[in-house]
């Protein structure tokens, strides 16, 4: 997985202050930076270095997401990053879970026709099934996220 935005940031700034973890590094209990360690004119994939506060410099090739996460592990911040991401995912899943239609037995096509006379039966049924099937995935995702965040 390539990271276009990250590469562009690296090309235009000496120090990359945008980190995929949170905006306030003080929350994480360790400051760190990501640096482009390729020299001007040097070819090849960007190479990054991470400098955990009080630790030695670690260098990583190919700034794909996995490498970044591996880099962040070195700074001891991966667990916090995971929790942050799970919390945001929970908010996102929760939003869609609340919003999706939960069809009941009463939501039959004949009743729907009273409000939407031009809706075709096959479309009505497909939307119903679609909502039920997506709702189940959202419910399952919600339960797993709640469980993971309670650990």
């Amino acid at each position, binding site marked *: *997985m390539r*990271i*276009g*935005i*990250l590469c562009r940031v690296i090309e235009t700034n000496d120090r990359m202050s*945008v980190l*995929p*973890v*949170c*905006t306030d590094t003080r929350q994480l209990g360790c400051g760190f930076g990501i640096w482009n360690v390729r020299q001007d004119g040097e070819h090849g994939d960007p190479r990054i270095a991470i400098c955990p506060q009080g630790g030695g410099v670690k260098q990583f090739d190919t700034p794909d*997401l*996995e490498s*970044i*996460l591996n880099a962040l592990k070195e700074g001891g911040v991966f667990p916090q*990053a*995971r929790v*942050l*991401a*799970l919390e*945001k*995912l929970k*908010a*996102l*899943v929760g*939003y*869609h879970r609340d*919003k*999706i*239609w939960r069809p009941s037995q009463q939501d039959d096509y004949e009743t*729907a026709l009273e409000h*939407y*006379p*031009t*809706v*075709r039966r*096959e*479309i*009505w*049924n*497909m*939307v119903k*099934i*679609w*909502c*039920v*099937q*997506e709702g*189940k*995935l*959202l419910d*399952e*995702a919600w339960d*797993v*996220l709640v*469980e*993971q965040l309670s650990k």
Partner: protein
Amino acid sequence: MAIFVPYAIIISSDVVSEEAQHDKELQNVLNALPDTPTVEPILSVFLLYHLYLLRSGGTSKWSVYIENLPKTSLRPIHWNQEEIVVLQLAGTSISRAILAKLSFLKTYYDALRQVDGWFQTITWDDYLLAESWVSSRTLSCPRNDKPILVPILDLVNHSSVRNAAWEMTLEGVELIREPVDIPAGGEVAIAYDLDRGTGERLYRYGFIEDESYDCISKEVVLFDVSPSRVFGGNVVRLRLEVVKGGFSDLSFLNYENWYTLSSDRN
């Protein structure tokens, strides 16, 4: 091998470019297409041009193909106004995507309508139909990942328990039987995209694979509505297998949505 389709009758962007070099009318309309990062609108214009030729009483190499393409579709972009309202009220993840898609297509259609000539005979419904032909029938060419239309092969229906598969060779595309029995009169079927979710399958192909209320979608596309969107970072493809894995693997988050999800930038 069940079917072999030679390159000579496969429609790709290269075929369209080649034909446009010798056909000013087609070229003019293609030139009016807004800048597009994808090939699909180019293929749509090509099919519409041959639809126009067919309607005008002319024939071309592609007439028989065009004549036999379906003239209706259950893809949501073809739904009527009330059906779209129902879809929106249902609050599915793809409700917004459909409106965005229709708006995007309208921009293209309006741009093409500025060109004098054959495109003036193409209606909005024609344009949507061509879009559906392309969206639901193209294969991704393994050599360059670009969509191609493979006549005849694109008549093969989908089944999750497929008994055939397609393969690209040096000469064309082959439909190959899987080593399973197909009874006399039995349908030959391939698997389109096994991992698509219920909504995306309907969005792309106009059908739901398993119409059971007990079934669970394999994937849901979630749109982040927070104000902290960054480029494409407002889209998260949440997959059943990731959920079942307890979110131990978060690599489905690309950089943009990882960044969006893990930072507060209000």
